C-alpha cells in the first residue's frame, strides 16, 4: 500500500518535495474509502468532489511555494462538527438533511491550514455512546475485527485512521469518546484540555465536558493538528486565552525525570486481565526510560460515573431542545404543535438519545435538582481538586483507557450500565477538564489493540505528547497495522 499509510509529517514532506501531489494522495484515499467503507461504515458522508477541489487548490499553493501546516493533507472530520456546505448529521436521523452554511472554528482553522476534507465520520448519535452502535447510520466495524465495535463515540474517526482511510481525523471527547475508540482501534487519541479548542460549531452534547480532539497515527501528528486548531476563539466564551505552543517542538525530549502517577483506583477488578498486564508493562517501560513511577490515589474515581451521568445528560436535555423541527432538520407534522414536537423528536432521535434526555430532564426537575444536579456539581469540584492535588506530586498520570478491548457488536446494546462502564476510566478526565491521550501499548489474546492512557495537567498537552512520543520511539505496538491481520 502506498500513500494512505503516511503520517501527516511524512505526507507534508512528500508534498513539499514534490514526490506526489495532494490530488494523487486524495484520489488514493477516496478510492480506498469507497472500497472499504461498505464494509467498515466509518464514513457517513464522503466528500469526493470538494476534497479533490481542495487538493487541487493545495497543489497550486504548494507550487507557488506556500507552506502551511496541513497543506494538502487529507483529513476526516467527525460528523458532529459543522462543515460549510457539507452535510452534518451528528449521527442522527433528525439531521439527515441538514447542511450547515458555516464551519466550526476547528474546521475553519484546519481549512485555513490547507487540509483536505475527505468526509464526515460515523459516531454514536450526538456523541452519546461508546461503541458507535447508537448511530442513526449503522454501526462502524472495527478494522481489527469486523465483528467488533470500534468504540465510540468517535468510532468512525478511529476506524478511519486505523484502516488508513485518512491521515488523521477530528474527534470529540465528552467522557472518553476520543481516547476509548483510539484504544480499541490501536491509534493515537488526543483529548485536549477543556477550553483549549473552540467548541463553536461542535454540536453540543455536554457543553461543560465536550472537547475536540485528534485521532492520529502518531503523537506528533496529533500535535500538528492541535497546534493548528487550538487557541482562544471570540465565538466561544469558554475557550481559554492561553498561549498555544508549537506542540511539535514542545513535545521534544525524553521522559527522564518525569514523575508518572499510577492511581490504584484505575486497576480494579472487572478489568480484562491482559489489559491490566499490558498497561502495567507500558508503565514499566516508561520507568525504564527514566521516568519516576509513583502510586497515587484518586478515591473519587468511583463516583465519576454517576456524576457524569447526571451532568452530561442534564446539559444534553437542554442542548437537544433546539431540534424541534421548526427551523431545520426533520419535521414530522402532527395534529398540533405539541404533537408535531413529539412526532418529530420521536422519529428523529434514537433510543439512547431519548434515554439521556429523560435522565437529564429528571435530574433538573424541581424537587430533584438539588439532590442530583447540584450534588453532582459539588462532587465534580472534588474530582477536579483531587486531580489538582495529584498533579502537585506527579507530572502525568498513567492508567488504562478502557476496561476491555473491542467488544462484539451487539454485546452490550441491551445493557446501558455495562455500556456506560466502558468509559469508567476516561470520564474523570472530562469532569476535571484536563487533557489525556491514548497510546497503543499491546494486544490482548485475541490480537485486539490495548491503549495506555496518559493524563496531563490542564493545558499541559506537551507533557503527555512528549511521553507518548518517547514511548513510541521505544516500542513497536503502533507499527502493527489493522490491515496486517488479514
Amino acid at each position, binding site marked *: 500500500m502506498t500513500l494512505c499509510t503516511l503520517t501527516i509529517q511524512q505526507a507534508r514532506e512528500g508534498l513539499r518535495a514534490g514526490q506526489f501531489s495532494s490530488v494523487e494522495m486524495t484520489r488514493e484515499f477516496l478510492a480506498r474509502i469507497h472500497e472499504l467503507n461498505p464494509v467498515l461504515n466509518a464514513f457517513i458522508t464522503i466528500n469526493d468532489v470538494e476534497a479533490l477541489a481542495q487538493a487541487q487548490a493545495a497543489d497550486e499553493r504548494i507550487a507557488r511555494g506556500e507552506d502551511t501546516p496541513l497543506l494538502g493533507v487529507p483529513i476526516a472530520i467527525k460528523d458532529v462538527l459543522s462543515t460549510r456546505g457539507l452535510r452534518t448529521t451528528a449521527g442522527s436521523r433528525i439531521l439527515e438533511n441538514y447542511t450547515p452554511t458555516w464551519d466550526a472554528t476547528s474546521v475553519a482553522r484546519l481549512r485555513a491550514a490547507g487540509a483536505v476534507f475527505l468526509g464526515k465520520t460515523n459516531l454514536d448519535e450526538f456523541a452519546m455512546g461508546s461503541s458507535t452502535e447508537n448511530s442513526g447510520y449503522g454501526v462502524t466495524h472495527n478494522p481489527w475485527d469486523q465483528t467488533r465495535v470500534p468504540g465510540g463515540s468517535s468510532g468512525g474517526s478511529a476506524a478511519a485512521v486505523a484502516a488508513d482511510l485518512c491521515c488523521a481525523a477530528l474527534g470529540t471527547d465528552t467522557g472518553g469518546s476520543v481516547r476509548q475508540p483510539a484504544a480499541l482501534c490501536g491509534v493515537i487519541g488526543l483529548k485536549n484540555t477543556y477550553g483549549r479548542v473552540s467548541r463553536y460549531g461542535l454540536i453540543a452534547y455536554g457543553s461543560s465536558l465536550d472537547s475536540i480532539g485528534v485521532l492520529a497515527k502518531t503523537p506528533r501528528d496529533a500535535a500538528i493538528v492541535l497546534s493548528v486548531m487550538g487557541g482562544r476563539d471570540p465565538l466561544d466564551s*469558554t475557550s481559554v486565552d492561553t498561549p498555544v505552543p508549537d506542540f511539535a517542538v514542545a513535545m521534544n525530549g525524553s521522559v527522564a525525570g518525569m514523575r508518572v502517577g499510577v492511581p490504584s483506583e484505575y486497576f480494579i477488578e472487572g478489568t480484562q486481565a491482559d489489559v491490566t498486564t499490558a498497561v502495567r508493562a507500558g508503565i514499566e517501560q516508561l520507568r525504564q526510560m527514566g521516568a519516576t513511577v509513583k502510586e497515587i490515589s484518586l478515591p473519587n474515581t468511583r463516583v465519576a460515573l454517576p456524576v457524569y451521568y447526571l451532568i452530561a445528560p442534564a*446539559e444534553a436535555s437542554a442542548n437537544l*431542545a433546539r431540534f424541534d423541527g*421548526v427551523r431545520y432538520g426533520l419535521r414530522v407534522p402532527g395534529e398540533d404543535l*405539541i404533537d408535531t414536537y413529539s412526532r418529530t423528536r420521536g422519529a428523529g432521535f434514537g433510543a439512547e438519545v431519548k434515554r439521556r434526555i429523560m435522565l437529564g430532564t429528571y435530574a*433538573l*426537575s424541581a424537587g430533584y*435538582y438539588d439532590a442530583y*444536579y447540584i450534588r453532582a456539581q459539588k462532587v465534580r469540584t472534588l474530582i477536579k481538586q483531587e486531580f489538582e492535588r495529584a498533579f502537585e506530586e506527579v507530572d502525568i498520570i498513567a492508567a488504562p483507557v478502557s476496561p476491555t478491548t473491542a467488544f462484539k457488536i451487539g454485546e452490550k446494546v441491551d445493557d446501558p450500565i455495562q455500556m456506560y462502564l466502558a468509559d469508567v476510566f476516561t470520564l474523570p478526565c472530562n469532569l476535571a477538564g484536563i487533557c489525556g491521550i491514548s497510546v497503543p501499548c499491546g494486544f490482548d489474546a485475541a490480537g485486539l489493540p490495548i491503549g495506555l492512557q496518559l493524563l496531563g495537567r490542564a493545558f499541559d498537552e506537551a507533557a503527555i505528547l512528549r511521553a507518548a512520543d518517547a514511548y513510541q520511539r521505544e516500542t513497536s505496538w503502533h507499527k502493527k497495522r489493522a490491515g496486517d491481520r488479514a
Partner: protein
Amino acid sequence: MEYEIVIGMETHVEQNTASKMFCQCSAEFFGAEPNTHVCPTCLAMPGALPVINRRAVENAMMIGLALNCKIARHTFWERKSYWYPDLPKGYQITQYEYPIAYDGYIDIDVRDSASGNWTEQSYRKRVRIRRAHLEEDTGKLTHIGGSSFVDFNRAGVPLIEIVTEPDIHTADEAYAFLSALRDIVRYLGVSSGDMEKGAMRGEPNMSLRPIGTEPFGTKVEIKNLNSLRAVRDSIEYEVKRQTEVLNSGGKVHQVTMGWDDARGVTVTQRDKEEAHDYRYFPEPDLPPLDVSEEWFESVRKRVPELALSRQDRFTQTYGLSAYDAVVLTRDRAVAEYFEIAMGGIPARAKAAANWITGELFRLMGSAGVSAGINAVKASPAQLAELIEMVENKVVNINTAKSVFEEMFATGQGAKAIVDAKGLAQISDTSALDKAVQDALDANPGQLKGYLAGQDKLFQFFVGQVMKATKGKGNPQIVQGLLKDAIEKRRLSV
C-alpha cells in the same frame, strides 16, 4: 365591601443596543423583513454558541443604579427551558438566582389622571424594586389562516425584566410607575421605552383584598398592554370586574387575562397557571459574570441625573414653575438644552424656559422636527447668546424672535444674524435725538394735540421715530428722549 387593590408590576424593557444579546446581529429590527437579522447563534443552529454583549450588561447595570438597586458583583447565566416555536434554543438564557440588580426603589409622582397635571390630590410615592435582570427576547409568531409564521429578528434582543414589590395600589399609580420607568430608560438612553412598538411591556399582576386584611387575594395577571392608557384602563376594568365577583359572593380565579383594547375589556387567556417547571440550571456556554470595581465605576459615572431630581432642582434652584420643570425635564436632551441655554444663571432660567417651551417648540412643531431637540440647528449656546443680547438690549424681543427663526432655519449664530442684517438696536442717544426732533418738527399738529392732553398721540411719535430708525431704535430710550423733548417744547411754547 371595600377592597384594597394590590398590584405588582413586571416590566420587560427592550434595549436599543446596536447588536443582540448573544450575537453580532443588528438589534434594530423594527420594520425589517422577517428573518433578515439572524445568524447561527440567534437561530440556534447546531453547534452555535452565545457571546455576551457587554453593552447590554452595562445598560442593565445603569437601569439598576437608576432604580436605586444594589448591583450584583458576581452573577451567572441560567437556562430556562420551555417549548415554543419562537424560542429557537428551546431555552432562554436569563438570570434567575442572582439578578444583576436587586433591592431598589423608584419615586413616582402620581398626578391627575385626566390632565396629567399636579393638583391638590397629587402625591409622590415610593415603589420598591425587587429585582431587575437580563435576558434575551424571543422571536415573533404570526398566525395567518391555518398557518403560523415565525420571525426571529427579535430573537436574542437584550431585555431587562424589572419586578416590583406589590406596592402599587391604584390604576393611576400603575400608570405613574410605568411612565416614570419609561422616562428613566429614555433618560439613560438604553431603550426607546415605546410601549406601542413593544419596546416596553408592562404586565401588572393584581389582587383585591378587603381593606384592613393581611392575606393577598387571588392573583390575576394582565398581558397584551400596548400603551400606558391600556395599563390604566385594564386595571380599572379588572378592579370593577373583581369587585363585582367578590361582592356577589363569587371567587376570583387565578388566570392570565389579555386586554382587548378595541372593546375595552379583559379576556381570559390562560385558565389557571400551568405548573411550569423551567428546569433552570447554570448556562455552561457562558462563564460567570464578574463585575469589577473599575467596570462598575465606569458604568456608574454614565448614569445621568434623572428627570425627577432635575424637576426638583429646576423648581427649587431656578424658581421655575412646576409645569415648566416637568415640560423641560421629560426629555433628557431638552433638559440639557435648557441648562446650556440658561448658562447656569438662575436669573436667566425663566427667559430660557420661555424661549424653549414657546418659540422653539412652536418652530419644531411647524417644521415637523420629529428627531427631537438634538436635531435642531440652533444650538443651546446660540440661544444663550440671543438671550444675552435681549438682556443687554442689543435687540428688542420682537427682533429677537425673528432672529431666532433665522437661527432655527440656518443654524447661524444670533450675533452673526444681527450683524449681517444690521438689526442691532440704536441706543446712541445723539442719533436717536435727531430722529426725535425731526418727528416733532414734522408733525406740529400732533404735537399741539398731545400737549393739549391727547395722551395717546405719544405712541404716534414713538411710531414715527421707530419708522425713521427702521425699527432699530431702542424703544425705552426712544420713549425717554421723546418725553424729555416734548417737555422742553412745552416749556418753550
